[in-house]
Every structure is written in structure tokens, then in C-alpha cells.
């Protein structure tokens, strides 16, 4: 009996079951991120709304999702909501849990970005006759984007690893599949090493992409020229 079996390690590194888990982790991250961004954007707008009710709702949402353990949120969605007659599949519950949580954090990042754009910019755009929606789209968001990108990148890095919490509701992402194999084969260290390598690979890859995005939008604003058609 040896402590570390290289053959097992290499087998798992290319195991289709594990690779499938990696793929699931990637698309969970992507879908949760996109849903989180869209939802987070609207929550950010609500927090800045003139209507006290909208502000209150947004505040409550952020308070709820940032104030309760992330691990618990998918569990509640998957196991507790059926008691109210609301049933979701594992995939749905995992995605909803991740997206709702992500939206709470992203909305604060987006709000900070919007608030970093000086009020005078909005005033000038308004004086030119732009509607509030046009101002958001052509003036505020392109400028807010620069402020949003660095924390957004960190958030994506976190999300790549956070997807692992959905393993508690048996979502078959990387961690869950690693655990399944561990229970069959007992090569605990080798399997966790394989999982760690894939998580590191994903986060490293993302760091690389993030740096490219930051370089593109960070120091030359010239790339955001007005090329869009009406």
C-alpha cells in the first residue's frame, strides 16, 4: 500500500467524469454570472430609485442574501421551498441559488460604478435632450464600466469556486463528482489534488482573461468610440 498512487492521479486527471464536472463548473459560473449581472443591474437601479418602496426592496434583498450563509441558500431553495409547493430541479435550484446570491454582491459593485460617474455628466447629457435610458446606456454605463471591471473580475474568480457549494444539493459539478469518485475508490488525496488542479487552472485562466479586459478598458478609453447604430 503506497501513500500516493501516481497512476490513479493521472487517470483521474483525464477522467471524462471529472472533466464533465469541470465543464459543469464552467457553465454554472457563466450562467450564474450573466443572470447575476442582469438582476444586479436592476437592483442597483432600484437602490438609486426615487421611489422609497423600490429602494427598500433592493435594500432588503441585498441584506437578506449577503446576511445569510451562501451554503444555506441552495439548500433552502431545493429542500425547503417544496414545502410551499415550489419545486425546482437540482440544476434549477443550483442556478437560482448562485444567481440570486451573485446579484446581491454585483448590485453593490454596479451601484458603486454608477455613483463614480460625476453628476455633471448626467446633467450635460440631460441638457442635450437625452432620455434617462439613453443617458444610462451611452454616458453612465460606459464610464461606470471601468470602475466595475476590477471588482467584477474578483467576483468571477470567487464565483468559480463558489459553485462548489451546490454540491450539497448534489449538483454534479467538479467537487461533487470528485466526492462521488472518492466514495467509490478511496483515493482521497489523489482526487482532491485533481480537483484542486482544475480549480487552480480555471482561476488562473480567468486571471489572464481579466487582465486582458482591464488592459483593454483601463488605459485607453479610445476603444469605446461611438460606432453603434441607432
Amino acid at each position, binding site marked *: 500500500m503506497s501513500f500516493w498512487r501516481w497512476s490513479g492521479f493521472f487517470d483521474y486527471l483525464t477522467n471524462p467524469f471529472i472533466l464533465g464536472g469541470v465543464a459543469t463548473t464552467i457553465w454554472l459560473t457563466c450562467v450564474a454570472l450573466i443572470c447575476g449581472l442582469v438582476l444586479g443591474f436592476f437592483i442597483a437601479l432600484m437602490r438609486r430609485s426615487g421611489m422609497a418602496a423600490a429602494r427598500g426592496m433592493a435594500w432588503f434583498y441585498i441584506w437578506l442574501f449577503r446576511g445569510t450563509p451562501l451554503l444555506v441558500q441552495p439548500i433552502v431553495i431545493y429542500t425547503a421551498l417544496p414545502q410551499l409547493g415550489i419545486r425546482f430541479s437540482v440544476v434549477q435550484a443550483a442556478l437560482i441559488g448562485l444567481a440570486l446570491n451573485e446579484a446581491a454582491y454585483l448590485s453593490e459593485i454596479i451601484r458603486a460604478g454608477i455613483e463614480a460617474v460625476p453628476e*455633471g*455628466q448626467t*446633467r*450635460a*447629457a*440631460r*441638457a*442635450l*435632450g*437625452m*432620455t434617462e435610458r*439613453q443617458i444610462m446606456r*451611452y*454616458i453612465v454605463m*460606459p*464610464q461606470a464600466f471601468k470602475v466595475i471591471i476590477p471588482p467584477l473580475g474578483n467576483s468571477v474568480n470567487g464565483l468559480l469556486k463558489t459553485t462548489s457549494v451546490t454540491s450539497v444539493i448534489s449538483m454534479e459539478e467538479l467537487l461533487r463528482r470528485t466526492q462521488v469518485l472518492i466514495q467509490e475508490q478511496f483515493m482521497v488525496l489523489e482526487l482532491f489534488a485533481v480537483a484542486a488542479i482544475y480549480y487552480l487552472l480555471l482561476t488562473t485562466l480567468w486571471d489572464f482573461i481579466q487582465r486582458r479586459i482591464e488592459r483593454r478598458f483601463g488605459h485607453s*478609453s*479610445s476603444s*469605446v*468610440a*461611438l460606432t453603434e*447604430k*441607432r
Partner: protein
Amino acid sequence: MMIEITGVTKYYGQFEVLKNCTTHVDKGEVVVVCGPSGSGKSTLIKCVNALEPFQKGSIRVDGIEVSDPATDLPDLRSRVGMVFQNFELFPHLSIEANIMLAQRIVLGRTEDAARRQTIELLDRVGLADHATKFPAQLSGGQQQRVAIARALAMNPLAMLFDEPTSALDPEMISEVLDVMTGLAREGMTMMIVTHEMGFARSVATRMIFIDRGEIVEDRPTEDFFSHQQNPRTAAFLGKILHH
């Protein structure tokens, strides 16, 4: 009458910034508004295109009531040009794009038409060579001239200037005033908040003096400078003309 301000009163909380202000700007007139800082002059000009709301009174621009909730404000504002103290060019857009954007998305002009207008106006403010630069690459005076071109690109009925030279280094003031003088000579209707009394004297048809939210004096330029009716106006002019 292009701009008709009647009995406008505005509060910030308890503080009365504008007290029952009444005046007007006729078509082709150049009206300069002056007064001590905090007197409400900038607030008044911002009320004209509804960037600031007011509680009482009425402002009509080309016959349209600004404070009427039914008024299409974006449409009204697109017909009144405004130039700000801090230029407020859009830093993420090139000079050209700054001037083209509202023409495209507000007026719905074609790219060609918007560009033609842009080139013409840049030429007119003496910045034809700078079309593809970004605002941060220009001096304050140049940025303010672009801001004027951006407002003119909408073919406005009237232009509002809110202390257009107050944020500029002294050597850049004249290049901006020259552009404004040119506009005035061509008959543009203008309402200008400024401390540049020499400029006011040469281009204004009427002078308004505001102090503590009240229009204290509202008279033809020559009259205004030769003999002030109100001691507050005389005191203000004494302070600002003496150095």
C-alpha cells in the same frame, strides 16, 4: 418671446434661493446675468431647461411651459443649448463622438449628416484638427469650445451659458469669449451667467443683476453700466470692476 420667466420662486428646504423672479429673453437678445456667488444666478439659468425644479411661477421656452408635467422635457432641452462651467465633455468619447452622439440618438440624424455638422462646427470653433482626440488631451479653453460646438450641433433656439469661463485659466478665457461674441453677432438668443463684465458690456443687450435670489436690476446694458438704480448693484460692480 423666447424665454419668459414669471414669478419664479425656488426653495432648497427652508432656504429661498429664488424670490419671485420675473424677466424674459427675446429672440436674438443676449442677456447677461450677474451677481455675487450664491445669489441664485446659476440656479435661475438651470431652471430654464428644467435641470432644476422650482416651486412657484412659470417659465416658458418658445411658448412651452417648462414646469408642466406634460411637457416632453428631453424634447424641450434638445432645443435649448447649454454650456457648463466645467465643460462636461464625455471623457470616454472622442471630440467628434461627443458632438455627434446627441445628434444621432436624440435628433435621429444620419451618421453622415451628424458628421458634416460636427466638422463644420469644429471648424467654426477652430478645432477642426482635434476631431479624433479625447477630451483629456485638450486644454480647458479647447474643451469649452468643443462643449459650445456640441450644444450648437443641435441647432438650438437659444443658448444658456452657466459661468462658461469661471473654470478656465486666464489666458484661455478670451478664446471662449471670442466664440461667444461671434454667436451673439450672428443673432443667437443667449442667456449668460458670467463675471466677465468687459465681455458683457460689448455683447449684452440687457443686464440682469441678482442678489440673494432677487432680480435687483434688469436694464439695457448702457444704462446698467452708466448709472445703477440700486446701491447693491453699484456695490457689486464697484467690487468686480475695480481690479
